[in-house]
């Protein structure tokens, strides 16, 4: 019988055999494809990340959430215009008042007019206190909420995410949840695809929820079910991403918005998952003519009371 050291030695020796050189043709193929492969710009402020704890870093990186793909970047040549090397993040929080003068190649299925500017607002970066009602304005719709426990904070710009870190696990890994309240227009064909649904889901909460629930490879844990949030009709569903999601980290796109001011007015903000196996609780609320997308992403291994706290935050929402 082999002893452990024997096994290790044999396995190491066996692994020495095998190819060690990448054929030139493979490298050539990669380099040939660079001009047609736009880079995805980072949008987080590195200066702030350095000051944060482990989960907060993840929450921001995953507040992760949103990859900004300016309309037009995807199909432009790499060495021209907004192609490779150009920033896709608009520094301006206000939408561009004028539409693009040129056709707008985009991952979204059909061209749309520039969104009409609407009001958005959310608390500045702060620790959220018990007993205080915090105001948001989401796509022109005012709402407010409270938190049920201490430990929740908002990140302020650019997305107004709120998050809570749980006590670090013994191995030091980050656990916790973060929440984003915004609008979502369309979902991806699948988490690892670069294409959005065409045609887009209809305007109702139910149609968007069905599109989310129908994404191949995404496990629907609960719902979609009819609920009310703050007295408004809504759809709730919970999805989980498979552990063996095959796309590259932070490239598993799920859905996008163009309405959020941090999308730059003419851009698409793609939200991607940050860790396979995560759970995402979603409430799609129909309120005052807007479709509000409330999503809470919870990392694997996070204590179950976080789910309850998220539900309590949802229950605290009031409109107006």
């Amino acid at each position: 019988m082999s002893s452990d050291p024997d096994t290790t030695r044999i396995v190491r020796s066996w692994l020495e055999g095998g190819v060690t050189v990448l054929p030139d043709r493979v490298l050539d193929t990669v380099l040939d494809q660079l001009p047609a492969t736009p880079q995805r710009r980072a949008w987080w402020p590195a200066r702030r990340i350095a000051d944060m704890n482990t989960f907060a870093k993840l929450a921001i990186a995953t507040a992760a959430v949103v990859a900004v793909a300016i309309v037009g970047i995807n199909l432009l040549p790499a060495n021209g215009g907004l192609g490779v090397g150009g920033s896709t993040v608009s520094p301006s929080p206000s939408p561009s008042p004028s539409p693009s003068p040129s056709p707008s190649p985009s991952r979204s299925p059909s061209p749309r007019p520039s969104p009409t500017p609407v009001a958005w607002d959310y608390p500045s970066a702060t620790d959220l206190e018990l007993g205080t009602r915090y105001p948001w304005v989401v796509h022109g719709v005012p709402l407010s909420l409270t938190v049920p426990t201490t430990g929740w904070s908002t990140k302020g710009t650019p997305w107004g995410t709120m998050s809570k870190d749980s006590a670090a696990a013994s191995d030091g890994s980050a656990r916790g949840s973060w929440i984003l309240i915004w609008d979502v227009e369309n979902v991806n064909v699948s988490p690892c695809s670069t294409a959005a649904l065409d045609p887009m889901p209809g305007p109702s909460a139910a149609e968007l929820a069905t599109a989310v629930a129908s994404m191949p490879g995404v496990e629907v844990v609960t719902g979609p079910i009819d609920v009310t949030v703050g007295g408004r009709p809504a759809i709730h569903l919970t999805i989980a991403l498979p552990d063996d999601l095959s796309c590259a980290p932070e490239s598993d796109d799920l859905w996008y918005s163009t309405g959020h001011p941090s999308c730059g007015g003419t851009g698409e903000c793609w939200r991607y998952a940050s860790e396979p196996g995560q759970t995402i609780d979603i409430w799609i609320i129909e309120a005052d003519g807007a479709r509000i997308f409330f999503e809470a992403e919870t990392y694997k291994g996070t204590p179950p009371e976080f789910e309850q706290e998220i539900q309590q935050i949802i229950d605290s929402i009031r409109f107006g």
Partner: protein
Amino acid sequence: MDVHLVQAAQHGDQEAFASLAVSVGSRLHAVAHRILRDVTLAEDATQQALLAIWRDLPQLRDPARFEAWSYRLVVRACYAEGRKERRWAPNLYLIHPDQAVAGEGLGSVHDRDQLEQGFRRLSIDHRAVVVLHHYLDLPLDEVAEALGVPVGTVRSRLHYAMRGLRAALDADARPVAREVAR
């Protein structure tokens, strides 16, 4: 790794990326081949990983961690290729000619066959840990960083994988032991 090259490539410098790709391509390919046990799949995985590196490089916050990050991407690409293998490839495998050269300490062709079969029974998760630790000699904490999982998970996967490989080797020895017992 030249951090300046990484930074230049992050800003869209294709020549800098080409130098990076030359520098890391063979290592990524070697890792992919050892995980997937198939030259063609490994080439596809390496190609996908290099393109993913180019595409997502601006999002790498610490250029000094480029290497660990690149391993993560190649393992991800191996997941995708491994999935294709499960879907479309016949349940056969071919030992690449390079593998026919037994390394020091590898007892027999039969050992290699047993290891090959035992390794193929492991998930990509487990294979990746074995390859990063025992082939690249990465310490467990660096394997954890590369794979984006806790160290405890890496330790557990490694234990499980090595137990499976030892069982594969023991399966080879078992008939001999029975004969001796008789």
